[in-house]
């Protein structure tokens, strides 16, 4: 498994921490899944700053924390939020989210590249939430990112991988860059598919947090990413149009 800014994760599942029925269920979902990364938002929760019991609970999960800039619409907001996150969680990791469109929550890739450059120069290790656009990916790498996080589908939509062709192309274009499918996952099969395409990790939140039983769903997602990862390593067969008998008979003395 590829390292993320030098850190090798225990498994390829990253979970968000928003929208769970309670912190207890959140914690149990992490335990059940063994997820190695917790993303946490600060923009809305951060007003006022100190004494955040909820953040302390996230720290107590004992997993790598990836603070995010969810809810930020401008470079200035994102940079300020990232700086606050660094203080609060004592990490240089930042999931950079710069929303460009209110309804689809599509990233504003132009501001994203610029914000990634500013944050990298400031010493951050940036995980940019981007689209599957190859040129944007290239620009983000030029800006100093060493990880790319293309969307599967719009945040919270649960639609899975909307553009498999482009995601496959992205994997081929950046063979050595750790790639994470971020957003749009609704089902374990979506997560497995992302891993089968050769992605290095899957980041999801709503699919688990808003499931009827978040703990079971977290477990299901963990099994799915593991299955997808194993399948990728095992070099799957190519699909064919015609049947292929697994035991060839022609030319064998099968009547003897």
């Amino acid at each position: 498994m590829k390292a993320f800014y030098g850190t090798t994760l225990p498994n390829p599942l990253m979970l968000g921490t928003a929208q769970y029925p309670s912190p207890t269920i959140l914690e149990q979902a992490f335990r059940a899944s063994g997820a190695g990364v917790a993303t946490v938002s600060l923009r809305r929760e951060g007003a006022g700053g100190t004494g955040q019991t909820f953040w302390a609970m996230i720290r107590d999960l004992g997993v790598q924390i990836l603070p995010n800039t969810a809810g930020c619409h401008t470079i200035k907001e994102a940079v300020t939020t990232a700086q606050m996150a660094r203080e609060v969680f004592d990490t240089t990791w930042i999931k950079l989210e710069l929303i460009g469109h209110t309804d689809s929550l599509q990233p504003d890739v132009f501001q994203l590249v610029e914000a990634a450059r500013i944050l990298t120069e400031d010493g951050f290790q940036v995980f940019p939430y981007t689209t599957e656009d190859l040129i944007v990916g290239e620009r983000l790498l030029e800006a100093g990112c060493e990880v790319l996080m293309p969307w599967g589908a719009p945040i919270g939509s649960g639609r899975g991988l909307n553009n498999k062709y482009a995601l496959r192309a992205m994997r081929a274009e950046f063979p050595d860059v750790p790639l994470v499918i971020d957003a749009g996952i609704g089902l374990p099969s979506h997560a497995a598919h992302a891993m089968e395409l050769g992605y290095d990790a899957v980041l999801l939140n709503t699919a688990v947090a808003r499931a009827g039983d978040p703990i079971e769903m977290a477990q299901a997602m963990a099994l799915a990413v593991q299955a997808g990862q194993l399948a990728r390593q095992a070099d799957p067969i190519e699909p064919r149009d015609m049947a292929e008998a697994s035991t060839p008979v022609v030319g064998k003395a099968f009547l003897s």
Partner: protein
Amino acid sequence: MTLWSVIGSGVAGLAVASELVARGARVQVFDPGGAPGPHGCSWWAGGMLAPWCEFENAEEPVLRLGQSAIDWWADRTPVQRRGTIVVANTRDLPDLRRFARRTTGFVDIDRGIITELEPDMGSFGKGLFFEHEAHLDPRQALQDLSRQLKEKGVEFHQKLAPAQLENAIDCRGLHAREVLHDLRGVKGEMLVVRCPDVTLTRPVRLLHPRMPLYIVPRGDGIYMLGATMIESEDSSRITARSMLELLSAAYSVNPAFGEAEVLEIGVDLRPAFPDNLPRIRRLGRTIYANGLYRHGYLLAPALAQGVADLALENKHSEMVDEDRA
């Protein structure tokens, strides 16, 4: 006869005092804030007695224990038994289906029934009607409880409780966190508006993936719009975004809300334990009753009964999680 000292006169404290008095106990109440008012978070509550709806995102005890709350309150304050309507805008209908899958105690309603129930909700073609739910006016309820307690001879002391109290019942909400270390605050923001152009007679919940809203009628064209749920412990101000979201959600229920007068803006912190369920703990000579989260009026009766069971009969209800008397 033992004199029980209830500390805190929010919904938890007053419900505990009321239950104890109903069972014949002697009670006094301490609260430096005096009469029920904006210093306590139960002042800002919605007052919905909606166990079936709340079960969508809560644990089983909320559904079970919440159901007895309606009769408990009806013995003490006016309760409107008019049900709850749950709707979603057309683009959010998947949320309505999910809500229906995860709850019970409702009937599906169409535009005809919706407008029969609430003529000012003509823009919704589909909804759910939770006919057994009810609502009350939280401020009236607090005032009724304290008046009834005074009538029965309960003394209210407008000061901090003395440090070494015997037989104390601590219902101070988030102020008790110096003892209850697993308590946290969950920020809630709400508005009270006057909008005589809209007539709604029962709570309405509008589902939305990012900005769910409930509207609770208070009578005379006054409505409570609530409430945000933010994992933050900053209770200083409402944010512009929260206000925008609450108002635009109300506007989408009926555009006449655009002309409403904003009467009040409320911000406070709900006291909550990690599983968002209330707890009763006896530590030394004090019983702590806390963690009502967003279910103050819904679960205060069960909490009060649990406290009375422990204090008067030494019985452990399911809310008791620690007893180190």
